[in-house]
């Protein structure tokens, strides 16, 4: 392994992995450059005063000429945006490709006092900025996405800039630790507390440099005496102290440790010297060119003008396997596999040795794990082959570990490729879970770098559900595509639709919104056409003032609430005439609006009908209105309007009926005036009934003739009314007045109803033969009924009469009926 060299120290094990050779070179190296690198193998930004040129490791992207003010600090956000903190407190935000996104200020006072120093830091709450003003005050923002500026309390007696300071994230808040000469202070939002690191060497008179670990758990100080103090960030415990014998303050200092690591150490860097200081008072020194340190969760990246390297503690698994003359199960298995590939018998010996100790499972695990830590695909393969070989001799080894490792490594190797340039390590990969699913996060990283094909392939490879993976990648691609100003709307729309097709979960409306944001309304409309969810199209169309289109889309969606929303919008936007015209072309919207008006704005409803010359509905409208009217005259005039409309609608029947109604109302009014009877509003039928029961026969007669009431109904009416009045005499007279159009059975029945059997019997004889049985039964004359039934030789009627007979009291009748039945049956 040439690109990597290991130092087998008894106590301190570190390794340096060459990640990339830089694909570019800076004439003057990194001198006078601001350098910022994002964690998790993120992008690096180099900036010389006045020239900004953010870069990925391989292919630099040169930004435009820097024209803004003096930059004090660079930094990356968790979302891969570049922050430039300027001297006047303005923070400029650029995306990965150097396009300006936005800016914000860290406080107006800084325009006067200026920023002395600034730091960009990351915490679970997002990306924050802390800065020191010219008046030696600290200003802090924990999350720049939700900017809340905090001015930290004054440090008593602070006359000049502190010798060094750092931001800590403790107890859910961000704090500043600063050193001013011999004193150390902890600043939080409320107070300034002096602190003392335990066990700091008495030789030190001041702290000249400090470093916080990636996880905010550890602190390191560099003292003027050349000592490196290491301890916990809460300043309660001391881990160790190392004397470096260097008196010059270092250029940079960073923690180098891994989660669950054995040997936390601190990397201290001077102009020409790099030193690794461990807990156990040992140091390693590396020859060195001018570089920058980037702390990571599992090591330190070292970036120089020409190289990009990773320094980290050697992972236990790798140490076990690669340590010279190691007898660890993993090492033995690796050896076994080597022999096996050489087709040598020794393979069996090694294997047996592991098996005898019953450590084969352990060996496989070790090889798999070690493969994960290796950066060279060849080494990875070698280890995985060994694991695979070992696995064959195990019966119940769960395959997930191996399978997942192969899968993860494939993804990692792809993104580590120098053309992509994301030197992500395996421990970093799952660690990103804190934000989102690691696979999604990797996709996001790639998408931000516009590496769509790779992202697309990775999603496919990982079998991410379409709507979470591929769709997102395609959406980002499309959003990027719509910003290509040189291409015509047509071309872009077509290109997008061809590529996206009907991929599940694609939101064309989001892409359209992006296009609209870039000022390409026409393109946005074209893109919206592809959106299957009509509902999603509507808000954007309204925003773009394409209200007509919005209306048809709302209708298409079938969601009536959405239609109402657009209609309400149109109503406020348009003048009434245009609004009505629009509705006229959209029958669905029109009917909905009518419903709305019917309950909310009846007058508008009338206008709508008027506009459409819908006379039938206008007629109905007036009729309905007439019933809400108390005054007779108004009511009549409304009904008259209804008549006119019905006539226009050529609805002769309705016109006539309404005319009749007016006549009836007038008649009723007259009756009320003359006779003092309240009949207004009653139906014609009820009015007649009322007149008849009152004995106003003349008026009734008149009404009957005027309104051409059918004879039958009039007879029924009069019959019921007279019976109700118990005016039997008049009833008899009526019955004899002429031949009844309803026959005489009703007379019988109505009399019975009013409990006058005597009167009822008078009419039985007049009843037609078909109804005789019924009539007899109605008056309770079983004998008559029986006789009639037998006479008519009706089987049904005989049974009917029988059903009414009681076996004990009507013995004779029953017998007679049964005989008749039997006789009929014989025939």
């Amino acid at each position, binding site marked *: 392994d040439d690109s990597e060299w290991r130092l087998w120290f008894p106590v301190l094990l570190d390794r340096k992995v060459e990640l990339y050779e830089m694909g570019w070179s800076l004439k003057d190296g990194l001198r006078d450059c601001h350098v910022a690198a994002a964690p998790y193998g993120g992008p690096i930004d180099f900036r010389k005063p006045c020239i900004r040129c953010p870069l990925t490791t391989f292919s630099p992207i040169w930004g435009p000429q820097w024209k803004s003010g003096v930059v004090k600090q660079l930094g990356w956000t968790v979302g891969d945006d570049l922050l430039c903190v300027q001297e006047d407190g303005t923070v400029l935000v650029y995306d990965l490709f150097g396009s300006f996104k936005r800016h914000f200020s860290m406080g107006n006072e800084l325009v006067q006092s200026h920023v002395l120093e600034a730091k960009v830091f990351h915490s679970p709450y997002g990306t924050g900025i802390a800065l020191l003003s010219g008046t030696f005050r600290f200003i802090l923002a924990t999350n720049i996405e939700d900017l809340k500026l905090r001015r930290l309390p004054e440090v008593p007696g602070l006359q000049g800039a502190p010798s060094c300071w750092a931001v800590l994230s403790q107890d859910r808040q961000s704090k500043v630790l600063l050193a001013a000469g011999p004193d150390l202070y902890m600043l939080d939002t409320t107070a300034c507390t002096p602190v003392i690191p335990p066990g700091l060497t008495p030789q030190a008179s001041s702290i000249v440099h400090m470093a916080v670990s990636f996880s905010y758990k550890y602190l390191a100080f560099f003292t003027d005496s050349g000592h490196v103090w290491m301890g916990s960030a809460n300043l309660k415990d001391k881990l160790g102290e190392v004397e470096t014998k260097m008196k010059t303050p270092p250029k940079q200092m960073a923690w180098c440790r891994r989660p669950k690591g054995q040997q936390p150490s601190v990397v201290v860097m001077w102009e020409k010297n790099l030193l690794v200081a461990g807990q156990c008072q040992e140091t390693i020194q590396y020859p060195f060119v001018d570089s920058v340190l980037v702390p990571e969760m599992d090591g330190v990246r070292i970036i120089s003008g020409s190289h990009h390297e990773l320094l980290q503690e050697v992972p236990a698994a790798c140490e076990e396997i690669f340590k010279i003359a190691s007898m660890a199960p993993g090492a033995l298995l690796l050896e076994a596999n080597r022999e096996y590939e050489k087709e040598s018998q020794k393979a069996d010996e090694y294997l047996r040795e592991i098996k005898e100790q019953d450590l084969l499972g352990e060996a496989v695990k070790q090889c798999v794990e070690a493969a994960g830590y290796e950066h060279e695909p060849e080494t990875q393969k070698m280890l995985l082959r060994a694991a695979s070989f070992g696995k064959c001799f195990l019966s119940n080894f769960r395959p997930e570990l191996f399978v997942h490792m192969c899968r993860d490594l494939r993804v990692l190797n792809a993104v580590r490729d120098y053309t992509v340039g994301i030197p992500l390590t395996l421990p970093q990969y799952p660690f990103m879970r804190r934000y989102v699913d690691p696979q999604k996060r990797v996709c996001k990283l790639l998408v931000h770098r516009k590496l769509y094909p790779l992202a697309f392939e990775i999603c496919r490879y990982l079998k991410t559900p379409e709507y979470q993976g591929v769709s997102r990648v395609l959406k980002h691609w499309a959003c990027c595509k719509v910003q290509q100003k040189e291409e015509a709307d047509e071309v872009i729309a077509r290109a997008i639709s061809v590529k996206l097709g009907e991929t599940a979960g694609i939101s064309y409306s989001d892409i359209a919104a992006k296009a609209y944001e870039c000022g390409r309304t026409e393109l946005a409309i074209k893109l919206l056409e592809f959106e*299957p969810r009509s509902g999603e199209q509507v808000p954007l169309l309204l925003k773009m003032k394409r209200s007509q289109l919005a209306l048809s889309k709302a209708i298409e969606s079938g969601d*009536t609430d959405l239609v109402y929303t657009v209609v309400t919008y149109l109503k406020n936007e348009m003048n009434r005439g245009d609004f009505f015209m629009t509705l006229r072309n959209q029958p669905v919207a029109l009917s909905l609006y*009518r419903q709305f008006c019917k309950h909310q704005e009846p007058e508008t409803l009338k206008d709508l009908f008027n506009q459409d010359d819908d006379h039938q509905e206008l007629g109905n409208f007036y009729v309905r209105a007439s019933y809400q009217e108390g005054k007779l005259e108004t009511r009549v005039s409304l009904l008259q309007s209804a008549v006119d409309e019905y006539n226009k609608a050529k609805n002769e029947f309705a016109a006539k009926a309404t005319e009749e109604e007016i006549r009836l109302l007038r008649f009723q009014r007259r009756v009320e005036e003359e006779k003092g009877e309240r009949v207004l509003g009653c*139906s014609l039928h009820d009015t007649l009934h009322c007149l008849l029961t009152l004995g106003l026969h003349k008026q009734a007669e008149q009404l009957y003739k005027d309104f051409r009431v059918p004879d039958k109904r009039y007879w029924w009416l009069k019959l019921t009314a007279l019976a109700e009045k118990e005016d039997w005499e008049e009833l008899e007279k009526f019955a004899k007045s002429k031949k009844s159009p*309803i026959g005489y059975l009703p007379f019988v029945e109505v009399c019975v109803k009013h409990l006058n059997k005597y009167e009822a019997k008078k009419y039985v004889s007049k009843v037609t033969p078909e109804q005789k049985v019924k009539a007899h039964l109605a008056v309770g004359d079983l004998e008559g009924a029986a006789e009639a039934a037998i006479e008519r030789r009706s089987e049904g009627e005989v049974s009917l009469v029988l059903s009414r007979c009681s076996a004990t009291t009507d013995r004779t009748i029953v017998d007679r009926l049964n005989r008749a039945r039997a006789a009929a049956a014989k025939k």
Partner: protein
Amino acid sequence: MAAHLSYGRVNLNILREAARKDLREFLDKCAGSKAIVWDEYLTGPFGLIAQYSLLKEHEVEKMFTLKGGRLPAAEVKNIIFFVRPRLELMDIIAENVISEDKMRSPRDFHILFVPRRSLLCEQRLKERGVLGSFINVDEYILDLIPYDGDLLSMESEGAFRECYLENDQTSLYHTAKGLMTLQALYGTIPQIFGKGECARHVANMMLRMKREFAGCQTQVLPVFDTLLLLDRNVDLLTPLATQLTYEGLIDEIYGINNGYVKLPPEKFAQKKQGEGEKDLPTEPKKLQLNSAEELYAEIRDKNFNAVGAALSKKAKIISAAFEERHNAKTVGEIKQFVSQLPHMQAARTSLANHTSIAELIKDITSRQKIPPPLHPGLYLTLLHFSIIVVLCCISCVPPYVSASEAFFDNLTVEQEFMTGVDTDKVNTYIEDCIAQKDPLIKILRLVCMQSVCNNGLKQKVLDYYKREILQTYGYEHILTLNNLEKTGLLKLQTSTRNNYPTIRKTLKLWMEDANEQNPNDISYVYSGYAPLSVRLTQLLARPGWRSIEEVLKMLPGPHFEERQQLPAGLHKKRQQGENRTTLVFFLGGVTYAEIAALRFLSQMEDGGTEYVIATTKLINGTTWIKSLMDRLEEPPF
């Protein structure tokens, strides 16, 4: 409490549980004690999802009915409005919120829209200046409510009116959404058939939504093989006819609401000790009717004429079971007997209840039993007890003509119309009923039926009926008549040809010898008439609609077939002899008799298809016509 939902072909309890889960989640969102303010219309449908106990478990301490003015005092932290998205309700809510006593400790307001939130309503709340007062504005998606083991209803009363009269397709949107929810739980339905404009619209929306939700499909093995969407206006005739099944008659006479019926209490008087002082209860007897009750499940779909026999058979079985106690000798046997007692007692109560209901119905329907002539005074008293209440419900025939007589005459006319006798002339019976001012709805049902069976009425006949109705019942009904004409229930005969006889013959809508006791055809549910809608369903399953293309063209609206792609690996492998499952969705309502007919088809041994029924609302002719009437406020004088 809803075990009966899981006994059917499709376990509908899954849907209910999903709905209950959503409800609990919403309630827990409003931490602390709460009071619910109900849109009264919703209480019935909610009763099918959750009882008060569920609400109580989630700290619901008070319930109020939504009405204007100030909210009643209640020491609760949260006030939750459960409402349909209607503007008029928003105004009431705004009034409630504004008039809230500022002096008292503030209460948190929440609003839960059922079945869907509405921008329009939120806008209205905003205009009234109260939208900001709500901590949660949420929606409770309750489209299809499990009503019984094989029955889903949206309990949306106005659906038919909105779709066919007002051209407001809101309920169809809810239907499509509901069907999507159903497919999320029970898998994609591979085949969709439909007949009618609304059916087409719903199918289109479903296919569109499927595209919209593409990718988020749940991987569920499809439970339903086929969905059949039917417009109510394809079959306007069936609901107009009087249903003759047991359940159908209960609904026709007393009305079943959200699964409950209220009955006149007299027949249910407790006959225990102290026979002498029998207090007649005055409160109507409220009974829940569903398949959880074994006996009811057995008899509800029978033709009423077969119910008596079934009841007496059951009575014998139950009394035999009680007699068993004499045979129980050993301690073990007695123990066994005792353990069965609760079940037997429940069966006995159930039997008693249904015997009473059957008697009530029999008084109205049976031609044979006419009260014997007695002394007039006594006669009236008797009538007063058993019949008068009933009479008011079915018709206002003067009580001297027995109710059964009126029922029978009405039925005769209906059957004449359905068989095509004299449908082109003014009918004397209708004329007489109008003359006696029988209930308007009864008249409208008959006139509409005649119109439907004659493919419209001649101008002269139509105008005559309309005039008679206006003169008798009042001119304001001109609007109702206009509504009936708009929906096609009443129409002018435009073509000279009446195609109803063709439809009747081709689809065998009239079966001369319907067997009421042991039916062999669906026509038993109307004692002769086979509901058109169910015939279409039956013919779709076998031999397929291609055989009746001609008739389908005569019925309104398009007929269509759509297929939905199933995700790979979810194709069902049918076992030999395994029945297909079809979901029949009636857009605009379904009657109990139609349901009975479909259940009959499900149970046919060689049927090959089992049906689950869904609808916007359970209807009968009366409720249906009522929903189409134009309710005018009484004239103010």
